């Protein structure tokens, strides 16, 4: 039994998620945008782990899912950075507002 209520962890996850979201939507540097996205993933992971402990049917599944999410997140970070490298080589910029290829 824990003395800390589940809502405390959920609130923390919410705050981190919002910080990550804000960073992802406002930062110019693509690296920071990627990191912000990782932060959002982490916030989600906190939720998963919280619910693996709390509730009527606590189960290890939530933690396993967290591990999968981490694996996917790591892969995403690697591929994202590789794409960034490729774009950087072609456009000589890491600023996300200058990557407007979708416009043309």
């Amino acid at each position, binding site marked *: 039994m824990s003395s800390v209520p589940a809502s405390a962890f959920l609130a923390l996850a919410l705050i981190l998620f919002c910080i990550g979201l804000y960073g*992802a*939507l*406002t930062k110019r540097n693509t690296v920071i945008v990627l990191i912000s996205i990782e932060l959002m993933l982490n916030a989600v992971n906190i939720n998963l782990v919280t619910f693996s402990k709390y509730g009527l049917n606590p189960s290890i599944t939530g933690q396993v899912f967290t591990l999968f999410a981490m694996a996917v997140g790591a892969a995403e970070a690697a591929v994202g950075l590789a794409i960034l490298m490729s774009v950087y080589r072609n456009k000589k910029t890491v600023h*996300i507002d200058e*990557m*407007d*290829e*979708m*416009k043309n």
Partner: protein
Amino acid sequence: MENAWLIPLFPLVSFVILLLIGKQLKERSAYVGILATFVSLVFSIVVLFQRFFEPTYSAKFNWLTIGDLHITAGFEVNQLNALMLFIVSLVSFLVHTYSKGYMHGDERFSVFYVYLGLFTFAMLGLVISPNLLQTYIFWELVGLGSFLLIGFYFYKEEAKAAAKKAFIMTRIGDVGLFIGMILLFWQTKSFEYSEIFKAVNAGQVSGTMITLTAILIFVGAVGKSGQFPLHSWLPDAMEGPTPVSALIHAATMVAAGVYLVAALFPLFLASKTALLTIAIIGAFTAIFAASIGLVQTDIKRVLAYSTVSQLGYMMFALGSAGYVAGVFHLMTHAFFKALLFLAAGSVIHAVGGNQDIEKMGGLWKKLKLTGPLFLIGTLAISGVPLLSGFFSKDEILAAAWEGGHPILFLLALIAAFFTAFYMFRLFFLVFTGEFRGKDEKHVHESPGSMTFPMIVLGVLAIVGGYVNTPWFGSYLGDWLVQGNAKLGSGHAEGPVWIQLAATLFSLGGSFFAWLIYGKRSVSRDWLSGKGGILHTILLNKYYIDEFYQMTIVAISKGISYLFRFIDVFLVEGLVKLVTSIIQGLGKLGAKLQSGQVQTYGAVAFLGLAVLVVIFALTGGYLR
């Protein structure tokens, strides 16, 4: 006869072939056109002969089915159609042949044959149509062919204006025809001639409606056949090449109006008012146009007014219930007027493009072939006995007398006098006396391809009338009305004095012309001097064009300006408003499509946020 539908297809094939490879064929295009029309002519003759011994053949298939209405298409070979097929394909073939010489050296030689092919197809299609709708389609197609051919020399301003004028004025008539057609369809539920006649005879259509539709359809005929008051396009149409004038504006297309009235004759017979209208307009046109023809100096214009006048004659005949007389005159007129036009073309060709008869003269010695042929045409149209025009004109006058319009009869008689006068005036001015133009040595006879058609037509102009004479039997008339008692008797038997009077008037006119222009015993200025004002009025064609210019054209121009004003400032303003709003939206959208991933993400998230907030505030999991 089952294959009569093939006849219009040959010119169509020629049209398509020349359209595709005419540029390569150049002057050889003529052979394609000539061959196609010749085949049509052979078929037409076969069909005509078959029709002598067999009953009417008609075939049709369902074209459109709208509910219970079946709109059909097909063809029909009755007497009138067979005769028209023959006339049209004959004149068309001759004109095709003639044009080979006349248009020689023209840059757009093959284009000319393309147009001719289109026109011939449309005209042949028109005369075998069994229903009004099909007739209307081909009717417009011949209008198109006429428009293209009048405007053939499109680099000339006059030709352009004439083509436009012809198109618009005939269109005015066509509107009448169209309305009449729709009214008939509304009343009888069918476009087919036979159905319409059946309905009319059965009394399904009220008398007023018959009169209305008949007159509306007659309006279409007025436009096409150049009857008063829509006549003024026809003389202007002489800006086209002369063979075209012969084919379209003398023998075939302008006769289409007469043909239409003849084809729908049972409808007109059912309405006394409509018949009287036709008779009055026809007779008036006859004398009206003839009087203008008296003073014109352009060889083709004189012939054009003569055409208008003769078409008036035909209408007058039909209006006097002289079905046979009208059709008969249509046939003989096709022969001798085509002959006259071709001969005139030959004359123009000889003197190097000049059309002013004041600058001609003494051509009889130079043009050994054209001269006599022109004389034959002149004699025929003037109604000198023993030539084709005499018989048909006599037939008309007899019909008029029987029809009981003494005043109109008198008018027609005077018109006959005028006709003889202006035709012989033309003849004497062109062929006798001294040459008044320059370059006398240059004058030469036309090549064989031009003289051959004239000879054929010359022969026909002489003997064409003997198919229906008071002396040797009225074969044509009997045949035309065979199996259709409604059309009246085959031959109008008038008193002998009518024949004598007609002969007297035509000979009188000729003699008078000879006095002035041939023998010159009466000064040429006698007429113009005596009736100075009259002369001027005639020379200016009764100021009809000016009158139209000042009234109808001015009014419609005023209305157009008003509408233009509305269009520019009101409609266009509204349209601009709409377009600018849409454009603004588009620009906004384009701006939103910045390609900025972050912006897209931000917008998407804001949308989600708004939804979530609304959801949280209005209900959802809180309740």
